[in-house]
């Protein structure tokens, strides 16, 4: 990627974070109603000693695990069906694209009508908020087998089902992984929206609680945590996975 030269390149990420911290501290000093970073981190650290908070965190994590597993299952198998069976593509291909175009939060009202204010409604929101992108990227991936690979496979006797499972699907893996990475981000947003609106105990619901109680320091602490988890999972798991796959598939 031809990134333009940035004259602030000398600023290392850690230094930039520190600068941000100082700015925050300064604004808190100017506006007393605005909690200082120390106060926010203090509240956040204290939260972890509270069992209700830990339960909320565990609840969110659990729903994300279940929801995301369903996303993987439904997204990949749906995408494979779309790419493999033209009839299914004709019938629900545009439907999958439409699902992909609806933001996760927009599924919450329907989820509540169908499942009530329950955990299942939240999981449904994650599923619908994130499986569209996996379907679309899987579908794209299996349609884009590099011609040379396809030719080599055919001369080596691969055809039919064997060709599909041993050539088409592995050739699509980089695209599928791209989709899974995006789906994590979409799913995480959908989880928060779902919890906020259904008041199922979790980080999202804590957010609405502390907002109603006017606890600005708590609000910021929880938002920081949500951002932190989102970034951590993306960079510790998905970025690495994506990189490893791109290297092996010879794409970098």
């Amino acid at each position, binding site marked *: 990627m031809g990134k333009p030269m940035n004259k602030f390149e000398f600023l290392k990420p850690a230094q930039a974070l520190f600068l941000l911290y100082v700015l925050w501290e300064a604004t808190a000093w100017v506006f007393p109603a605005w909690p200082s970073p120390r106060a926010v981190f203090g509240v956040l650290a204290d939260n972890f000693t509270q069992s209700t908070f830990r339960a909320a965190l565990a609840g969110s994590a659990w729903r994300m695990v279940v929801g995301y597993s369903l996303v993987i299952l439904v997204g990949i198998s749906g995408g494979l069906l779309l790419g493999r069976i033209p009839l299914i593509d004709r019938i629900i291909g545009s439907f999958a694209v439409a699902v992909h175009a609806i933001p996760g939060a927009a599924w919450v009202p329907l989820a509540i009508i169908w499942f009530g204010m329950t955990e299942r409604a939240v999981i449904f929101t994650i599923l619908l908020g994130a499986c569209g992108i996996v379907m679309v990227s899987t579908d794209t991936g299996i349609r884009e087998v590099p011609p*040379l*690979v396809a*030719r*080599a*496979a*055919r*001369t*080596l*006797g*691969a*055809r039919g089902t*064997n060709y599909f499972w*041993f*050539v088409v699907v*592995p*050739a699509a*893996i980089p695209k599928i992984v791209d989709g899974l990475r995006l789906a994590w981000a979409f799913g995480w947003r959908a989880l928060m929206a779902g919890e906020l609106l259904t008041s199922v105990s979790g980080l999202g619901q804590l957010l609405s609680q502390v907002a109603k109680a006017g606890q600005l320091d708590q609000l910021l602490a929880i938002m920081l945590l949500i951002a932190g988890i989102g970034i951590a999972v993306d960079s510790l798991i998905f970025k690495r996975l994506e990189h490893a796959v791109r*290297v*092996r*598939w*010879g794409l970098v």
Partner: protein
Amino acid sequence: MRVELKHVFKSFSHNSSTLEVLEDINLTVEEGEFVCLLGPSGCGKSTIIHLIAGLERPTSGNILVAGRPVDGPDPSRTVVFQEAALFPWLSVLGNVEFGLRMAGIPPIKRRARALEYIRLVHLSKFIHAYPHQLSGGMKQRAAIARALALQPAILLLDEPFAALDAQTRSVLQNELMEIWELARPTILFVTHNVREATGLADRVYVISSRPGQIRDVQTIQVPRPRHAEDAALLTHQRKILELLGEEVEKVLQDELGERVHFPEAQHAVPPGHAHGMHL
């Protein structure tokens, strides 16, 4: 198995225009014979390989293998492509085993057979390496092992060494020669390099471009191992170059400066010959 092309025409239609790629190609490769197709870039040599492999169908004419018309790809006719075309998600072992797995050969047997061919191309130290970890020459070795593991009656090579440096190319040429003398598959080898063609083949078909037509067949009766400075080889090379004079001029411009090396004669290329050997 004997390969026979009878009055083969091939054209590709793109939008409303038609491109004639091959015109009235007649050629035979006898069982166990090593034949080179020599011609400038874009003369349709690769298309001939694809037709025999069953990856494409002729517009008209017949392609016969062991007397039977070709109907799609078959593991008895395997291909080594210029870009190796290994499966990036499989290790060297996985790649070489691929065709055997498709053929339904049980795991233990296919592993043993794959290892045997990996040894034959001197990649035993790299069985667990992935294609992205291999050099160009190693990739081609793996591709050759993969094609040979199916024990094909016909081995089709589509400019397999064109992208390699001269040293690696010369080593692989010699190894291919050894392998051919060992198993004696019928080999059809496509190249645009005059020295390579005359150095390797029993017969060389010279093909002109746009549309591809057979201009000449040269039977090379020089015994192997061949020496690059062999007078008979040089005579063949001169004849071919004269034949394709204009074509050479055309292609020389884009592909100047490459040549085949024979191990005995790495520095023995006379100055005037250095470039002219390359179509």
